């Protein structure tokens, strides 16, 4: 392997990228447009529509803290319901979309530490707002758990920590946009470039040089990673400037983006290998990425989807990237982040290996 050749190839790729105004524009603008559109839609809805009805049956301290946490998220309007009201009847009579029941043993279970404390979230999932509400409730639960597990002996919920992680829809949404960007960038770039170089004869030409297929693929993967990081930076900058996002950039997040890029670069390689020409490769790439776009939790939290869709989501690589990025960038849930990172890393190795093995430069 010669690093020189890879560097030459990377340099040339960069040059061509800069000269391709359309590519530059879309690399930066596509994710930003997504954020602006979705950000505008959902931040406009914040004030009025996210009402969460809460029935607090717990006389203890923790339920109050929990409710305070929900309130401090800034996204939800909390409407307290009498503890002797009939839940089913109340929901029906008042057209409630999201109803949270805190059981009587909540505080007891939380302070016990060995018992899991449940809250029950009843939702009308046909309503768009339900996904936002459930995301926020989940975030607060997560936060609670983190704070609790951080100090096992003296359990106290520091509401300050919750304020710090004051979540909005856009916070949940940004990691999804990063995953989505990595996927579309890598898959479409890779299948496009492979089909094109095959038909223009560049591959046949390269195969007579000492530059190997592996070196070329390595150069592609490095380029994709660089490109996706450029997009990610533009996403975060826009998020911070316009929407006051609360993301933390962690080592895990960076590793996760790299692994995700490799997964999708490999996927793009595989797609183009099984397609006759550029058009069919492009069509195949759309067919594969489109469901992932919507079912992997880029736009909506997975929990808000019907369970059979959640099962489908489990086999989609993008799901692990989105979940992992949320875990580490928003919830600060290191354990879950590492699990998702592990899955992505394994997928990256598998996809790249298959892609490298089957990709071809010549007829046979």
């Amino acid at each position: 392997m010669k690093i020189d050749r890879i560097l030459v190839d990377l340099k040339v790729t960069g040059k061509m990228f800069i000269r391709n105004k359309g590519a530059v524009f879309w690399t930066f603008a596509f994710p930003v447009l997504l954020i602006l559109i979705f950000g505008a839609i959902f931040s406009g809805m914040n004030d009025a529509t996210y009402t969460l009805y809460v029935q607090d049956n717990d006389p203890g301290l923790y339920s109050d803290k929990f409710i305070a946490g929900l309130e401090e998220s800034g996204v939800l309007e909390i409407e307290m319901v009498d503890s002797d009201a009939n839940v089913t009847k109340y929901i029906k009579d008042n057209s409630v979309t999201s109803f949270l029941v805190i059981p009587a043993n909540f505080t007891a279970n939380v302070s016990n530490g060995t018992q899991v404390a449940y809250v029950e979230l009843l939702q009308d999932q046909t309503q768009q707002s339900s996904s936002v509400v459930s995301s926020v409730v989940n975030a607060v639960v997560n936060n609670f758990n983190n704070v609790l597990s951080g100090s096992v002996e003296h359990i106290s919920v520091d509401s300050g920590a919750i304020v710090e992680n004051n979540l909005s829809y856009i916070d949940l949404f940004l990691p999804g946009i990063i995953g989505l960007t990595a996927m579309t960038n890598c898959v479409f770039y890779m299948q496009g470039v492979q089909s094109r170089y095959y038909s223009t004869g560049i591959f046949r030409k390269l195969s007579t040089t000492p530059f190997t297929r592996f070196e070329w693929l390595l150069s592609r993967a490095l380029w994709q990673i660089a490109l996706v990081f450029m997009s990610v930076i533009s996403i975060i900058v826009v998020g911070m400037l316009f929407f006051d996002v609360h993301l933390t950039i962690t080592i895990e997040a960076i590793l996760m983006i790299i692994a995700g890029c490799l997964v999708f670069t490999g996927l793009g390689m595989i797609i183009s290998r099984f397609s006759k020409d550029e058009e069919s490769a492009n069509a195949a790439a759309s067919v594969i990425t489109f469901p992932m776009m919507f079912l992997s939790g880029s736009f909506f939290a997975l929990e808000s989807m019907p369970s059979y869709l959640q099962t489908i989501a489990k086999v989609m690589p993008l799901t692990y990237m989105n979940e992992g990025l949320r875990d580490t960038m928003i919830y600060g849930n290191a354990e879950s982040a590492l699990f998702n990172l592990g899955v992505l890393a394994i997928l990256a190795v598998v996809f790249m290996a298959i892609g490298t093995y089957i990709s071809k430069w010549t007829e046979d």
Partner: protein
Amino acid sequence: MAGHVIEVKDLVKRYGDLKAVDGTNFHVDKGEVFSILGPNGAGKTTTVEIMECLRKPTSGTINVLGFDVAKEAREIRKKVGILPQEFNTYDLLTVRENIDYFGAMFDRRIPTQELLDAVNLNEKEDVFYKNLSGGLKQRVGVAIAMVNDPEIIFLDEPTTGLDPKARREVWDIIRDLKKRGKTVILTTHYMEEAEILSDRLAIMNDGKFIAYDTPRAIIKEHGYGTLCVIKSGSRAVADMLKAQGLNCELKENDVHCWMQNKADLQIIFRQLESSGAYYDEVLVKRSSLEDVFLRLTGRHLVEEV
């Protein structure tokens, strides 16, 4: 065998039931321009790409520069330069950047400036590849094929789709390669081009070589020799010439006479003058590779001209 840079024996390439190359035998001499002439789908590219080690033969032995294609592809690739059919390099790099790129990919290289001189592209060195005309693009392709200073250069249909002027410019460059002592292997479906440029050539059809020699020898063997056409000549003219022992025939409105020797022409002119018969003009044509192809296959080489 001395002097043969390429040696091909019983080459067969199958794609399923199709025999793309069907048992060809040939050799290429050092320093010559060798052409493979044939219509679409004849098997030219398949043959050439097997010699370039880009495809594997189904059977046969192929030796390039003393190396076996099956085992020593790496050695061969260092010493050959290729211009693939319908080659297009990076659109958004300039001519110079494209040449530099491929130069860097090879271990051995000729300075870019020298290559620009060789293909006469000095004035265009800073133009993006995508903005070049078809002829100039092919010249860039040739320059890139030369970048590792190869002994053999393969050009797969370098003039297809070019206008006549651009085609002639590519011819000049091919002649120039020969002057530099390179062996050139050219594929084409233009018989004129093969005839003018080649030292030797093969005519290929349906995977087989149907003729293989110097252009002159092929025409001599398979052509009809020299033909004299008397435009708008009558049946009377044809009969008159036949009476003189000439091989003549009325074809549509013209009288066609196949020459057996040079004296025949004098007879024709004398007879025309003394009889005062009406005719438009007299043309003398040598048979071409196109005629050879038509005769051997019953088809035209290029469908529409």
